[in-house]
């Protein structure tokens, strides 16, 4: 396993083509806007080295028998699935943001199921290729970007019907030694902190779309892959000297648009090629795993609840009954989220490949809750924090002699607490509910791993209405 330092060094060796604010980023690792997101991924390496987290963060590989980082593991039993949920909460609480490494883990697990199924149905040899690739990832302790979401153009049209065929990533050429692909993947979490990028189709497909039914993995710095960084609200605060106004002084996340401009993929890294009948299964398995992965929001919720309670204490309002009740409500919502990610793991089952997968109904119910509860938890945190979290002056104003004395005087809360500490906790609440971390805690909770409607479709499909009707009719004495 790599240490955080080795991880950072390994990123320096990559030659990524990254753009931000209209310019090429030459030094990605040290760029002040990107750096906090690298710190968050590095934390997944650091925690794995520490004895007090090792039981969750590491596991024995079923391929090599060696101890590996759980983020590169294929779940071998229900305990693995449960520990994955616990790891999400642990990491979310340690970083207070998206730590970016789950998407790759979920892509690996989904591919372990689907490559096996394709081979069984079609006599292909994808599974063997996949296991070779997995071994490479595990042995080198790599970060993989899980790239599913296409730009999608007109949402009402299938891939082959789009005005521009590149709006879904597709195969443009088949060669003896591999394929050439073109298109893009949007909203890619942790893209420029990744060693590898694993591409999967974004929707279930029909025969007309078979050129779009493609899955493969590439080194992140493969020629023709271009990264255009997304920006986050308050991102340029990271360019300022002080740390207070950032809210979270160390960690953050990032997303990017990843363009594939006629990129060559060797056959040994192709895991699906025009088997359109299996695109839906890959999407469904990946989405189910990733909906479970939103256990991370519980950990971030822990941070926000801790911040709200601290703000109440700094304000001297912690004994008010309505404040206590709001904290209870925040905990109730957060632990309800935890129930979902633990239960879908506990009810997991074995697929023919040997991989364990979560209960898909419960994973979708969990994610549906995630689309709602962090918003309510944030509302309550803002209620408890008071208006100062959005009206307080800059750190520089606290440092400037002309203004600092007034801010110290008038922004004091509980007199036992330094005014600056009060400002720090309010900035953290701002960061989580309106600032850079709100990308992960709120909008990603809404759309990441699929927008709310995607879960409702799955809930409708999986909810076993027949059994419910049968129970009702039996009790009502209806004999049909």
């Amino acid at each position, binding site marked *: 396993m790599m240490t955080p330092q080795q991880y950072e060094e390994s990123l320096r060796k990559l030659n990524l083509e990254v753009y931000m604010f209209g310019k090429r980023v030459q030094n990605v690792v040290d760029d002040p806007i990107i750096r906090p997101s690298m710190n968050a991924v590095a934390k997944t390496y650091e925690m794995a080295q520490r*004895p*007090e987290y*090792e*039981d*969750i963060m590491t596991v024995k590989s079923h391929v090599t028998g060696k101890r590996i980082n759980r983020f590169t593991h294929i779940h071998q039993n229900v*305990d693995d699935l449960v520990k994955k949920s*616990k790891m999400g909460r*642990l990491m979310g*609480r340690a970083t207070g943001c998206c730590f970016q490494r789950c998407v790759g883990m979920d892509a690996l697990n989904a591919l372990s199921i689907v490559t096996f199924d394709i081979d069984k149905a079609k006599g292909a040899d994808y599974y063997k290729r996949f296991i070779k690739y997995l071994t490479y990832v595990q042995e080198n302790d790599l970060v993989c970007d899980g790239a599913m979401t296409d730009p999608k153009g007109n949402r009402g049209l299938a891939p082959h019907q789009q005005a521009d065929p590149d709006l879904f990533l597709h195969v443009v050429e088949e060669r003896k030694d591999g394929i050439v692909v073109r298109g893009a993947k949007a909203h890619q979490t942790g893209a420029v902190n990744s060693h590898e990028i694993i591409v999967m189709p974004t929707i279930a497909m029909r025969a007309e779309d078979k050129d779009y039914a493609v899955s493969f993995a590439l080194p992140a710095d493969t020629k023709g892959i271009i990264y255009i960084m997304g920006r986050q609200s308050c991102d340029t605060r990271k360019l300022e000297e002080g740390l207070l106004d950032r809210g979270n002084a160390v960690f953050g996340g990032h997303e990017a648009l990843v363009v594939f401009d006629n990129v060559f993929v060797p056959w040994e890294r192709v895991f699906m090629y025009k088997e359109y009948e299996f695109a839906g299964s890959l999407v469904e398995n990946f989405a189910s795993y990733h909906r479970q992965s939103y256990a991370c929001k519980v950990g971030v919720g822990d941070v926000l609840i801790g911040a709200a309670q601290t703000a109440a204490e700094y304000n001297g309002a912690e004994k008010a009954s309505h404040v206590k009740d709001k904290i209870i409500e925040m905990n109730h919502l957060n632990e309800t989220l935890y129930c979902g990610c633990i239960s879908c793991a506990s009810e997991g089952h074995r697929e023919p490949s040997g991989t364990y997968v979560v209960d898909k109904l419960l994973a979708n119910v969990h994610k549906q809750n995630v689309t709602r509860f962090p918003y309510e938890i944030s509302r309550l945190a803002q209620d408890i924090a008071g208006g100062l979290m959005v009206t307080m002056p800059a750190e520089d104003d606290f440092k400037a002699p002309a203004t600092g004395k007034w801010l110290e005087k008038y922004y004091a809360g509980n007199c036992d607490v330094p005014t600056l500490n009060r400002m720090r906790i309010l900035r953290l609440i701002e960061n989580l509910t309106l600032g850079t971390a709100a990308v992960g805690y709120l909008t990603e909770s809404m759309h990441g791993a699929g927008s709310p409607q995607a879960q409702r479709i799955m809930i409708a499909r999986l909810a076993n209405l027949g059994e419910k009707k049968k129970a009702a009719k039996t009790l009502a004495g209806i004999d049909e």
Partner: protein
Amino acid sequence: MSKSGFKTSPCTQYLCPAKILILEIFHIFLRLKFSLSAILGAIEGFITTFKGNRQLVVGLKYCGGCNPNYDRVALVAYLRQRLAGQIVFVRYDQPEAEMILAVEGCPTACADLASFEHLPVFIIKRPSEAEEFIMYVENRLNEQSAE
């Protein structure tokens, strides 16, 4: 074996003083915790061993700490201090370990203990159980010195 408690153990073996000192230093470097109490504990341990007293070599296994109810690392630091000269903590996978101390953050106690079936395992799930562990170690060492 009960979830909180211990199994009867094989006899405590003698370790040579040099080996014990190396183990102590290795552990300190491994954890990168240069706390004064740990260093003093190691020196005291060495002196005790040099005088001929037995030390119990305890393999330390933490749960993953997803949502612990108390500070597990602080609890171990406390045990290290209280039992200085009587025990040596090593990594749970070290062959020298005569028993395992599993430090679990909550009553779920989900640390993977499957590979320790050949060893006695003492499980701590709450801070109050630290005192039980101290008594266990002291009783065990007393029994052995009486033998």
